[in-house]
């Protein structure tokens, strides 16, 4: 397990460093980003069950969804703020969107590599949590 984690970490860091050296709207950026997306799609198709069973609440006392509400609220505020900045009249400098902020981050090689690594790591978490084993552990009463 440790070996697998180490290989994933080293591979992910190496891939991120190479991907971060590419420039958007070029073939290398398309290939490296697209390959990661295809790999995620393949893993999802292979490891996710065709029909997931609904997750049960962790306990009878706890209302379903309650611990998720703060995240839902944050997501709603995030989307509303993103839409406001995207649609409001004025310059992008005055009304930065999430994309324009990440564009600014992408100008720094190491920050871009970290962002790419974070995206890869999040993809692994998504694949793992949606897999048969991940869904079983999620729906286990605790």
């Amino acid at each position, binding site marked *: 397990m440790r070996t697998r984690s180490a290989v994933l970490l080293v591979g992910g860091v190496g891939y991120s460093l190479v*991907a971060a050296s*590419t420039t*958007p*709207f070029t073939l290398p*950026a*398309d290939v*490296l*980003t*697209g390959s*990661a*997306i295809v790999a*995620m*799609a393949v893993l*999802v198709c292979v490891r*996710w069950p065709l*029909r*997931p*069973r*609904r*997750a049960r609440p962790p306990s009878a006392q*706890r209302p379903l969804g*309650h*611990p*998720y509400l*703060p*995240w839902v609220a*944050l997501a709603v*505020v*995030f989307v509303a*703020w993103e839409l406001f*900045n995207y649609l409001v009249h*004025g310059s992008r*400098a*005055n*009304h*930065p969107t*999430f*994309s324009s*902020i*990440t564009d600014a981050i*992408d100008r720094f090689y190491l920050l*871009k590599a970290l*962002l*790419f690594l974070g*995206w890869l790591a*999040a*993809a692994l*978490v*998504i694949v793992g*949590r*949606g897999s048969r084993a*991940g*869904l079983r*552990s*999620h*729906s286990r009463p605790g």
Partner: protein
Amino acid sequence: MSVSTISYVVWAALGVAALGLWWLSYLRPAAAAHPADVVGKLASMPVVRVLFVLGFMWLGWHLFAR
């Protein structure tokens, strides 16, 4: 305070709120679910999980390729 400063302050507040919820999920899991559990919840919903994965793929494409 300029308009851009206000915008950045709100973005920063959203980032801090996300980190705060993450931290809270370790301290009081009943108050805020761990991010991985949020993903697990989304992945257990038949239609939402497809939209979630497609959205995540699009995010990577948008941030790093286009």
